[in-house]
């Protein structure tokens, strides 16, 4: 079972895939994807790729509301506990 650090690493990995310019940047839990330069399409891509890696099959709408990466990781962690 994945812990929160594993999920954080996945989010970072997929963020860098979608935003290659962040390769050198040290992404922090309290960073906001939007502040890192991710537009709404980029954010959808990052979240969906992370869900794919986690095989987490929940509607994306259930992951709305996260204010930063840490909160996104929390939401993802909750969902994998409950399925």
């Amino acid at each position, binding site marked *: 079972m994945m812990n929160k650090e594993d999920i954080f690493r996945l989010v970072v990995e997929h963020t860098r895939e979608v935003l290659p310019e962040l390769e050198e940047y040290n992404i922090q839990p309290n960073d906001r994807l939007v502040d890192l330069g991710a537009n709404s399409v980029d954010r959808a*891509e990052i979240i969906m*790729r992370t869900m*794919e890696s986690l095989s987490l099959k929940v509607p994306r709408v259930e992951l709305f509301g996260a204010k930063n990466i840490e909160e996104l990781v929390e939401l993802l962690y909750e969902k994998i506990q409950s399925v």
Partner: protein
Amino acid sequence: MLRTASFSGQVGLITILEAWEEAKLDKADPSRIGLVIGGSNFQQRDMVQMHEAYADRVHFVRPTYGLTFMDSDLVGLCTEQFGIKGISYTLGGASASGQLAIIQAIQAVQSGQVDICIAMGALMDVSYWECQAFRSLGAMGSDRFADEPEKACRPFDRERDGFIYGESCGAVVIERTESAISRQITPYAIITGWAVGMDASRNPHPSYEGEVQVIKKALEQAKLSPHQIDYVNPHGTGSLVGDEIEIKAIVDCQLSNAAINATKSITGHGLSSSGAVEVIATLLQMKESRLHPTRNLESPIEESCNWVRDQSITHHVKHALSLNIGFGGINTAICFYKI
């Protein structure tokens, strides 16, 4: 912008940029610039790859597919990148799409909708599904030349057996003198006549009457007699029936004296892009006063034409005629005049 664009979108952005910079469009009012993108089903190969990758886990399909499966995604990409705020849309005319976009762009400028209009023939990124179906339809060349691929593409030659696909994309900037004058541009040519005509036929084969009709209409609008045309850039795909019909129309319209070659013998057939790319080939040849060779034209189906064969030739072109034909019975023709 490039990172989430499809291949067709990336090529489109790169191609428009070249035309944009040459026409110095950074100095023009973006609300008076339009973009017409010729073609449809640009991103078939991306679609096939997406469908195959996610066939058994549709839930995880990439969200960007919701954008890229639509042709109009190219409109969004290109207008955002260049800040185009006039008009923009796609329009489809199969293999005549590129010329159809140019003609639509001309009309957008003529009607005053915009002062400057870019016409793009976009890259049609075909997958194996389209290749196989084109081949089964008898349109795409067979694998007879699989061991000698350089010989497969042979428009107007007796040994041809279909078109050979070639990736390409072309963009053309159209405006009136009064709009261009303040930016100090050397124009390539004046557009003097054009025509679009339908055969009322779904058949992939062109019609002789349809082809003759657009040639005559374009010449009439340009106020030219056939003998004034110095160069014809034909559609010439290498298709069995299409090439025969087209060359008969060219001969019967008394254009046999004009020099003629086949751009697709070198580039391959870009489908939606071909009309724009061949207009560009025409204008670049006019600029250079030089005509490119026609590859693999060993025994032409029509000997009476003034073919440019295995070597390029010096040839001053004042008036040129470019032709395109598309599935669905569409014929287009455009005349250019270089002062």
